[in-house]
């Protein structure tokens, strides 16, 4: 259409009153001047003139929506209930979709991210996947034909960023020379790093910063390039700023400072050619599959490793994984749980749609007389369908708009359910335009889903009014709701039991009220031997705090997923097994509540002795020393002699779900960072304050990098299960409530329309009890259908969730029984009121009932 015409018509719409006025005036003049002839009908020319200006389709549409709005206003309770249920269902879908988008769908913001692959190697001996390779291996591998276009190498240390007064933690990415060119990142200012920056070790102290850091720290000043940045104790020249949005090679672990890998010794304390420290990200050549690359890499990689080391075992395969999100593991960790949640909320939406479809159909029957009248007055079938659909769209639009607000406010609390992980995911889990588009599509789709059947039904029954609703369809709509609800309830039961089972795991330690403080001594005066003195003093002072029961130090914290392992040389053994180990200070076992089963704890004197005194756990004793460990001598690592002075109980080390693991405890030596553990009777918040001021009073320069508790640490480990359990219960509760409301609505209508029949039955001698039974059996039949449909569905859900269950199978009788009980109870509750009302029917008035 001509834009001028559009514009003029639009102006007309906005100045309609003026148009009418001017038209009337114009015609009045005409009438006066033409005295010799009658003007005739004046309404019709005015109307025809007006029509010229109108958009016919728009007027029709607006009329449909006005009618729909009026009819919805007439039933405020129904309308409010419908909008509320849609708000909850659509809101839940929107909120969960923002998780799916942020965790599963998003990619690194670089071109060709879908072809990125992460290269690791299985390490049979240490039961883990090796993330890191030697630099020489990386350089040689890049030169070979591996089916990869190019490979980049990075390492991701945390560092202190300081400028005179303030010190803050910053994420650093040490990058190979080809990093920015391979990823296709452009500079926002200055230049990016190139191969020449990375050639000679420690030669070029230069850095590129992220756009975020440029904005937050330098206010995007153009003179930032050329200025210096103090990272740890070294000074780097800023040569450029990366493009906005680029935050390093791991989507969910943002980095702000990019430094050539030639500077690695400044961060990891090893020369570039030493040890294995570099992580590899490759990009597949166009048309090369990930399997081909894997096969190729296993062949070439082994050859290269023979030259560069380290020598790997025959079963230590190279692992090549899809890495559109870069190096991070959050998609692997959270993806399944998040998709399961998406499934759950989608089911809730289906329940809500089935529910509304049933309720709208019931209303349609109630309004059939009204519709018949309109049809008799000439309204077309299409016009009626349009009006009913308009109602559905209005309801959905109302629900959708409120759902957007609900989703926006619920994302925060949902993220906090994830504990520490939530904070890392927060920048990506956002109600952004893509999520809004998803909500819009979902809203329209649900309107069509729940609106089409009632509209079609209403049009089909014209012009004969008040034909009774077709029972099978109503029954089916209700049965579907109960079936889906049963599936959700079952899933909720499985997740709740999983969480309970995990909480019930015997940790082998007492996790109640133990505060954990992580201290970073790097860059302070407490380096080397002086750190041990400082830490010992700290532990002593902590023990003296009011309310403190015990305090001690270690170099890692249990149940956080972190670990260290080392090779053992046991007397008379041909193999060299591997054990977890950690350094602890005297009093560690008492602080954590791990029982000492034999021997003694460490003493401050232990550090000095040449034959290392060690404490092993019971699992270690059983597995490696025939259960009789005390006094035994063996060696570890590079032939370091050790004597067992104590045996401790076996406690969980890395994960809640792990099998008993052998652990060796060493006296805590010199260290740059340590965990202080304090068991106290003081409440958490007060204890945290005590510890902060204690550390500050000893030395302000020592930074507390984390302050948490053993319980919080365990909660973090259970974040996924807690999220699933909480949301599944909430959502299944919502679904059951909706199904019950649906059942109530349909039953209330059905009994009301059978008032006359019931009256006759009663007049013929039916007892009130039998009338109530009549209603109840009707509803029970529907619920039974729902259960028959729902049980296989529940089993299916269980199968899908199997990998996240713990301590129970996908087929769980207790969950099934619980789900059935809740379902039947709510169905019964929904049926009782209509049944009771039917039983109280007064036959005399019922027979007069029209």
């Amino acid at each position: 259409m001509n834009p001028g015409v559009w514009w003029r018509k639009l102006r007309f719409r906005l100045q309609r009153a003026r148009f009418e006025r001017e038209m009337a005036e114009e015609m009045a003049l005409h009438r006066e001047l033409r005295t010799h002839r009658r003007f005739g009908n004046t309404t019709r020319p005015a109307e025809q003139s007006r029509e010229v200006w109108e958009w016919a389709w728009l007027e029709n549409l607006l009329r449909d929506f006005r009618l729909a709005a009026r009819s919805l206003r007439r039933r405020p309770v129904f309308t409010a209930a419908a909008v509320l249920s849609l708000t909850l269902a659509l809101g839940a879908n929107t909120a969960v979709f923002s998780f799916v988008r942020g965790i599963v769908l998003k990619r690194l913001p670089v071109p060709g991210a879908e072809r990125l692959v992460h290269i690791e190697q299985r390490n049979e001996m240490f039961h883990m996947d090796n993330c890191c390779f030697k630099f020489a291996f990386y350089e040689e591998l890049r030169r070979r034909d591996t089916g990869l276009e190019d490979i980049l190498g990075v390492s991701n240390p945390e560092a202190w960023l300081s400028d005179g007064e303030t010190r803050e933690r910053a994420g650093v990415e040490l990058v190979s020379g080809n990093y920015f060119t391979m990823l296709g990142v452009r500079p926002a200012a200055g230049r990016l790093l190139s191969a020449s920056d990375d050639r000679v070790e420690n030669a070029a102290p230069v850095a590129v910063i992220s756009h975020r850091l440029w904005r937050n720290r330098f206010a995007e000043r153009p003179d930032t390039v050329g200025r210096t940045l103090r990272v740890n104790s070294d000074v780097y020249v800023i040569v450029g700023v990366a493009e906005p949005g680029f935050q390093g090679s791991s989507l969910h672990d943002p980095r702000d400072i990019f430094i050539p890998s030639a500077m690695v010794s400044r961060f990891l304390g090893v020369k570039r050619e030493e040890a294995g420290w570099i992580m590899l990200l490759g990009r597949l050549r166009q048309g090369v599959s990930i399997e081909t690359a894997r096969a190729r890499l296993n062949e070439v990689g082994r050859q290269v490793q023979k030259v560069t080391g380290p020598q790997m075992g025959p079963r230590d395969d190279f692992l090549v994984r899809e890495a559109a999100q870069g190096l991070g593991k959050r998609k692997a960790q959270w993806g399944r749980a998040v998709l399961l949640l998406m499934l759950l909320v989608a089911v809730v939406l289906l329940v809500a749609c089935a529910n509304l479809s049933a309720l709208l159909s019931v209303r349609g029957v109630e309004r059939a007389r009204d519709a018949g009248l309109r049809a008799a007055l000439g309204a077309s079938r299409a016009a009626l369908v349009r009006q009913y659909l308009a109602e559905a769209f209005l309801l959905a639009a109302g629900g959708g708009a409120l759902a957007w607000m609900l989703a926006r406010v619920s994302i925060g609390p949902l993220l906090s359910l994830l504990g520490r992980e939530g904070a890392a995911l927060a920048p990506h889990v956002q109600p952004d335009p893509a999520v809004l588009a998803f909500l819009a599509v979902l809203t329209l789709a649900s309107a069509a889903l729940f609106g089409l059947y009632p509209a079609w039904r209403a049009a089909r029954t014209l012009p004969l009014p008040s034909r009774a609703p077709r029972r099978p369809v109503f029954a089916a709509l209700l049965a579907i709701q109960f079936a889906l609800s049963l599936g959700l309830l079952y899933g909720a039961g499985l997740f709740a039991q999983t969480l309970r089972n995990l909480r019930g795991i015997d940790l082998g330690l007492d996790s109640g009220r133990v505060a954990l403080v992580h201290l970073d001594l790097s860059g302070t005066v407490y380096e080397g031997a002086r750190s041990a003195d400082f830490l010992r003093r700290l532990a002593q002072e902590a023990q003296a705090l009011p309310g403190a029961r015990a305090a001690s130090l270690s170099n890692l914290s249990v149940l956080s997923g972190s670990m260290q392992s080392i090779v053992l040389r046991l007397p008379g053994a041909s193999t060299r097994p591997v054990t977890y180990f950690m350094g602890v200070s005297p009093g560690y076992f008492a602080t954590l509540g791990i029982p000492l089963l034999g021997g003694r704890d460490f003493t401050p004197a232990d550090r000095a002795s040449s034959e290392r005194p060690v404490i092993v756990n019971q699992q270690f004793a059983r597995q490696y020393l025939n259960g009789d460990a005390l006094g035994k001598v063996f060696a570890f690592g590079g032939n370091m002699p050790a004597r067992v002075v104590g045996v401790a109980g076996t406690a969980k080390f890395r994960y809640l779900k792990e099998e008993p693991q052998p652990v060796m405890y060493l006296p805590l030596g010199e260290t740059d960072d340590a965990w202080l553990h304090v068991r106290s009777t003081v409440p958490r918040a007060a204890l945290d304050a005590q510890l902060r001021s204690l550390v500050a009073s000893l030395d302000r320069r020592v930074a507390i990098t984390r302050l948490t508790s053993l319980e919080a640490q365990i909660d973090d480990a259970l974040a996924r299960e807690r999220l699933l359990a909480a949301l599944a219960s909430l959502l299944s509760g919502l679904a059951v409530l909706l199904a019950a409301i649906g059942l109530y609505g349909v039953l209330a209508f059905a009994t009301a329309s059978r008032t006359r029949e019931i009256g006759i039955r009663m007049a013929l001698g039916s007892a009130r009890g039998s009338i109530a039974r009549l209603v109840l059996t009707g509803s029970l039949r529907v619920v039974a259908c729902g259960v028959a449909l729902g049980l296989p569905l529940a089993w299916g859900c269980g199968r899908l969730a199997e990998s996240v269950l713990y301590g129970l199978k996908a087929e769980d009788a207790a969950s099934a029984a619980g789900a059935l009980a809740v379902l039947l109870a709510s169905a019964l509750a929904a049926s009782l009121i209509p049944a009771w009302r039917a039983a109280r029917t007064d036959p005399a008035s019922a027979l007069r009932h029209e």
Partner: protein
Amino acid sequence: MSRDEIPPGTLEMLILRTLAAAGPLHGFEIAEAIEAGSCDVLRVEEGSLYPALQRLLVQGWVTGEWGRTAGNRRARYYQLTAGGRRQLEREMERYQRVSTAIARILAPAVKGASK
């Protein structure tokens, strides 16, 4: 006195032509001008005149400005736009083509009758 209705679709052309010849006119004057111009053969119904004027306004071929009549009454004066002039040319050309074609078909019958 019997007068003929204007054939459908030609009223807009006549209005444009009238405005092109006479300059700004209000509704009544347009109707008068068309009727007078056709020696009172054609009759302009108010019921078609005003909707036709609205169509011309929507298309942007005429503009309407409020002014004063000789008798000092407020009236809307319609004026041709440049687009309206082009449209008039197009319409007249088309009308010429169609009426020539119709005349060609009717011609033998006319000849036969005159014999």
